């Protein structure tokens, strides 16, 4: 194995990590604003995958329409979950919210299982870009990898501009800083939280499509593991921090891909989670997380 092999693994790792980063953005935004761990986020990815699968394979729609439909379905789903499952629990104990989130995640998985069955669906990739070769054909990078990285860069830039410049984006920042003060300043807290869920879920739909394009099997459990790994990425980068989610996701993707290639493919999950354990042991606030002092 030479340097070029290593480079290929790193590039595919960055691509996998970009997907994690997009998912982690959803986790970290919701965590920053609603202070809750949205366990169902991983399963929204799966719903996004199925929505675009049906739109392309069963209805025969072109891919851009299928992506839009998938995003619309996920956005609606995310907002509805927030409205009916999480909003009534806004003042409840964290344990109750967490158990509800587990319940929602489990519900989505089992509804998908009833509708689509346990047998995997083979997903046709949305990406039509052919494989590119560099350095006299020694380094080949698939089209999906390139598109994934490009899409994630666009999303990161777009999201950062949205949050920094737009009124709703600044409202999100305000709510995550101090819910009560934001409300006093005339920010509609409920609407801002709903907007956060909507954006997070739309990103989850994109992540689902990219994930299924890279690994073209779709089952009701497709979203679960990437969802957990994206959470690891969010913690790694510092939960609540948007640039942290990007860095965490990409680093985690590279770690996972390299350990798959050089150590053992069966142990790669264990290695990813040892990263989480190490981060929690030595720097629980993550790379870019802020240390929060608690006032009594």
């Amino acid at each position, binding site marked *: 194995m030479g340097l070029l092999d290593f480079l290929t693994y790193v590039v595919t790792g960055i691509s996998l990590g970009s997907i994690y980063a997009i998912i982690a953005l959803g986790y970290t935004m919701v965590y920053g604003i609603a202070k809750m761990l949205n366990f169902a986020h991983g399963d929204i990815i799966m719903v996004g995958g199925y929505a675009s699968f049906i739109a392309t394979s069963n209805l025969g729609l072109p891919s851009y329409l299928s992506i839009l439909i998938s995003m619309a379905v996920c956005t609606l789903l995310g907002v509805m979950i927030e409205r009916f499952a999480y909003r*009534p629990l806004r003042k409840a104990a*964290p344990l109750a919210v*967490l*158990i509800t989130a587990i*319940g929602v995640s489990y*519900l989505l998985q089992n509804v998908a299982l009833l509708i689509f069955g346990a047998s995997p669906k083979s997903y046709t990739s949305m990406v039509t870009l052919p494989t590119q070769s560099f350095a006299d054909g020694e380094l080949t990078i698939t089209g999906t990898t390139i598109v994934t990285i490009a899409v994630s860069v666009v999303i990161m830039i777009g999201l950062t501009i949205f949050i920094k410049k737009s009124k709703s984006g600044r409202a999100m920042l305000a709510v995550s800083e101090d819910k009560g003060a934001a409300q006093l300043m005339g920010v509609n807290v409920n609407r801002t939280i709903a907007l956060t869920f909507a954006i997070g879920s739309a990103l989850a739909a994109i992540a689902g499509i990219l994930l299924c394009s890279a690994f073209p099997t779709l089952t009701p459990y497709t979203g679960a593991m990437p969802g957990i790994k994206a959470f690891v990425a969010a913690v790694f980068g510092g939960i609540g921090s948007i640039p942290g989610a990007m860095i965490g996701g990409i680093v985690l993707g590279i770690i996972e891909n390299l350990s798959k290639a050089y150590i053992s493919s*069966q142990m790669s*999950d264990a290695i990813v989670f040892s990263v*989480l354990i190490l981060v929690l*042991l030595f720097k629980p606030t993550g790379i870019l997380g802020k240390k929060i002092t608690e006032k009594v």
Partner: protein
Amino acid sequence: MDKDKKSLLNRFTRVAPAATTKSNTITYAILIAAFLIIQIMLSTGNISSLWKGLLVPLCIYAILAVSLNLTVGILGELSLGHAGFMCVGAFAGAFFSLYFEKMIPYAWLRFPLALIVGGLVSALFGAFIGVTVLRLRGDYLAIVTLAFGEIVKNIVNILYIGRDSAGLHFSTESKIALNLKEGGEVLVNGAQGISGTPKDSNFYIAIFLVLVTVIVSLNLIQSRTGRAIMAIRDNRIAAESIGINITRYKLIAFVISSFFAGVAGVLYAHNLSTLTATPKNFGYNMSIIILVFVVLGGIGSIRGSIIAAVILTALPEALRQLNDYRMLIYAVVLILMMLLTSDPRIAAFRAKYSPKRLWAARKTGKENL
């Protein structure tokens, strides 16, 4: 003491010592009554083989539910890897029994040792996870235990252990990679798991272990330690300010919880001829099912956990046609229980129409108590 002070005191000592003793007596009475009924049914032969086969699993689920309730109800943290601890205990216990089968031929000695070994190994993992995660605030325990459960299952599936005259051999590749000498035997065979475990579990041991779990849990809850743990759950900052060592007490609860999950696993392993780690027995689903027992039985209620575990294990056997929707129903149960118990209107309704209150009102003849 004037009336105001008294009512204030009552509010803070909602579970008065006399009331807990009474409640505990009810729990023990239910357990003993259940045992006696089953014993009578067994001795008169009034029980079908299907239900007879369910007796040990029922006890296993009861132990799992009670031990998870220590984490969820008493400690107030969410663990999603209870099945993982069960898996660790099952494999450690089964390995111990198989290894010492010839050296300790007596089941009455070997099986209790296996139970302790399984429990301790599981507790060790619990301590490792607890030390890392429990000192942090936030929902990290849920995600780390979830990951732990999945990883344990994966690692067990690629683990090969064999024994020959030179000692133990380990491998994560295959049976052949163990390089066993002639006459060596494979003890843990990767995805095929452990087979030939002595079938030492029976209903009497199982119900005895349920009793032990309940005694330990109830005594823990009422002890100084238990009160410290619940103080942390209710107000971490206040508990810290009166000098309670947060991490230490959290760790105690979590390690005891994982110990009993391991014990349940050993019981499980010795109830089967072949032990394999599949998503069905040690996977995420299993952890969720145990959580549903705890939530439906009432978070923090030991008695409720046992009753919910027994009913929800027995019910699907009785209603086979609902099997496809079982998991879906469990998910809805989790969400609805949380929404309903957190709704202030429902809480007000329950306070107004609770049987205890109505009974007391009738006795004193007063409308507004």
